[in-house]
């Protein structure tokens, strides 16, 4: 797995494109431009979120939130260091990425906290943002239960994370 998995997937897709007569190189370059744009568009938010996390750490807000949520985290068998990620993930993609970097720096990427943080970020969605964007395009002001069900599922996922990662 790892590098090998990505290599196999990429090779298969390129082969598939060639079989179907797609201009593989042209498609790659055009799609790649979109990826580059998306990465650049990420920068201001990422900058703001990195700053926010620094302020949260320095002001002690981090410690307050962590100790408030400590019983819940213990119940789910999750390390305290991932509390900021658990809170930020449903709100902001760039925020959780910045928080993930922080956990890597503090605990190490291969520590239990580092692996749990990785899974929490990769296996979830910016719930509040998605709802705002999709419903914002309609006249529907409220769709009952969606937020509650989504957040409940998120917490169930987090509990599974605490259970499967040793």
């Amino acid at each position, binding site marked *: 797995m790892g590098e090998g998995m990505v290599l196999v997937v990429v090779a298969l897709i390129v082969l*598939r494109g060639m079989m179907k007569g*797609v201009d593989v190189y042209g498609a*790659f370059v055009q799609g790649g431009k979109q990826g580059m744009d998306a990465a650049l568009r990420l920068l201001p938010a990422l900058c703001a979120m990195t*700053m926010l996390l620094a302020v949260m750490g320095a002001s002690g807000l981090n410690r307050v939130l962590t100790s408030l949520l400590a019983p819940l985290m213990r119940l789910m068998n999750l390390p305290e260091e991932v509390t900021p990620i658990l809170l930020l993930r449903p709100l902001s993609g760039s925020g959780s990425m910045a928080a993930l970097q922080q956990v890597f720096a503090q605990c190490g990427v291969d520590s239990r906290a580092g692996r749990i943080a990785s899974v929490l970020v990769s296996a*979830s969605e910016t719930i509040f943002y998605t709802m705002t964007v*999709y*419903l914002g*395009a309609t006249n529907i002001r409220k769709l009952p239960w969606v937020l509650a*069900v989504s957040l409940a*599922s998120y917490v169930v996922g987090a509990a599974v994370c605490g259970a499967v990662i040793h």
Partner: protein
Amino acid sequence: MLQSGQGAVELVLTLAGSMVLWSGVMEILTRTGDVERLGRLLARVLAPLFGGLKDRDCWAAMGMNMAANVLGLGNAATPAGIRAAQLLEKQGEAGLRALAMLLVLNNAGLQLLPTTVMTLRSAAGAANPADVWLPGMAVSGAATLCGLALMGMINRGGMKRG
């Protein structure tokens, strides 16, 4: 404080390479028509979960949105999701129920190849950046099932909507 800007730029540079690679490769898969095909397949398989929704345009947009999400194509998922929401809005009660289900599925965050986190792990020097793949599938799979079950029960109960 000033270092946060530098950290953010480094993070973007770390991610840019993999985002270019993934978007580029996925554009190939989009042009072969396979993303759309996966969307149609998902729409057919998941149809029972969405009640009695029949409208073809709705299903096309919903299928595209789900396929793009599962493949990690943010650029394609959002416009398809917005189109689905706008079309479903016109379908009355069944449409709102389907939209609720679609949002819950989106929010569970199931993604087959989480390239962003794998890239960040690789840049941070992880021994095996992909070792979080299987637990990740378990976590988002559990969240998906939980969301499907809960929203399915609520939809079946015929909630009154304001």
